[in-house]
């Protein structure tokens, strides 16, 4: 059980309504008491210490905080934590198993798909959602699917290559 109340408000206050939420995060049931105004990104980072979810712009522009919500990519800075009650969330920490990287992660490694790494978790989750829906995307389709995810380092070229690499691996062609 994690209480985020103090972290969010910066100090204990009385009479603040707190809600208990139960969310399946990376396959594991997690419970927390949250103030309704707490954003999902902050619950993940501060409450569950899953700091792989990055908050970039805080203004719904950059997609760095992308997670999968019931399998769909969403901006975790643009959803309230209470809204995730009873739902499934996958963060970048949920991609790899203890023994093996996810093919998306292997792809980013093989094709040098990251430089500073800040946008990488969001990129990988948006790409995971794409490959779930379309296992054999064209380069254009990869670019379209990632068109909201901003990267300020690499110019996207290697990110796109990484996703295509992963797609081929997941189809058993690599």
């Amino acid at each position: 059980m994690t209480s985020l109340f103090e972290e969010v408000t910066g100090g204990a206050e009385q009479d603040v309504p707190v809600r208990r939420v139960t969310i399946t995060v990376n396959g594991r049931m997690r419970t927390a008491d949250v103030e309704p105004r707490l954003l999902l990104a902050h619950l993940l980072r501060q409450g569950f210490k899953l700091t792989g979810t990055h908050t970039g712009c805080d203004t719904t522009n950059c997609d760095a905080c992308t997670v999968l919500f019931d399998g769909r990519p969403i901006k975790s800075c643009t959803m309230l934590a209470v809204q995730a009650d009873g739902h499934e969330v996958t963060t970048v920490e949920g991609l790899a198993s203890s023994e093996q990287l996810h093919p998306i992660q292997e792809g980013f490694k093989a094709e040098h798909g990251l430089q500073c790494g800040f946008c990488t978790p969001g990129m990988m989750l948006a790409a995971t959602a794409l490959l779930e829906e379309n296992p054999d995307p064209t380069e254009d389709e990869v670019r379209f699917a990632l068109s909201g995810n901003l990267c300020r380092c690499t110019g996207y070229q290697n990110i796109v290559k990484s996703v295509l690499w992963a797609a081929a691996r997941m189809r058993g062609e690599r």
Partner: protein
Amino acid sequence: MEAGDAVYPARFRYEAPRSLEEAIGLLHQGGGEAKVLAGGQSLVPLLKLRFATPELLVDINNLTDLAFHRIESDGTIRIGALCRHADLERAREIAARQPTMAAAAPLIADPVVRSRGTLVGSLCHADPQGDWAAVATALGGRVVAQGVHGRREIAVTDFVTGPFQNILAYDEVAVEAVMPAPMPGAVVTGGFLKLERRVGDFATAGAAVCVELVGDRVARAGIALTGVGSRTLHAAEAEAALVGGVLDERAIEYAADLAAQVAEPSSDHRGSADYKRHVVRTFVIRILTRIAQRPDCPEAPERSAA
């Protein structure tokens, strides 16, 4: 990150009702200090920036009966309040039968916003640079509102009363959007084009066009503009000029001129007023020319690249 660095909304009460009646009751009790939360892709950013500080948020995401879109036998399209942009983007029957909507769906915001945001919410938000309001205006769409006193349908052109303002009573929920049936026997054609500086930016200028053809004659036309005024603009004179005629070069250019005259752009960081007016004219010509050449093939938006 220290908690003090985080951007988060002002405090509010949160309810997630299980029925529409309960939602309406909560809004009624809220007495004008409550907001409906659907996709949240405009509202949550406003909450975070504290441009919006409602006392109560009524989250309607549990009202799963509203997560639908369907085309009725006469061609009427109904879109529930929880139908996400991504649902419309992937809907084959929309792609086959309503090309203006099909062209607009993949251009709404960015792909991750589209997972969550809703068409009905976009209409309610009434952003002068919104895309769906232009599409709905071109199609003659309506919003169905339900409140304590029952249900009513409101034409989209009456629904939006100003920038970020709609006509809903404080205790009404917009439950669905309706795009009316085409004329019997008509071929429904159309397109949507938007200029944006980058994916997810608001429209610099955009045009939604719908044309119903009977033979080679225009039986009905709808044209609306986004991003070029303090509200969605309805190019009614351009529509009237097309009806009854054929889509030849002269008719197309005349309609495009009339549409461009309706635009009320202002010069800003996205471009000069003259430039935006020129873009409107170009977009209308481009969509109508494609319709004239290939009525079965909607103006396909260029898939924006990262």
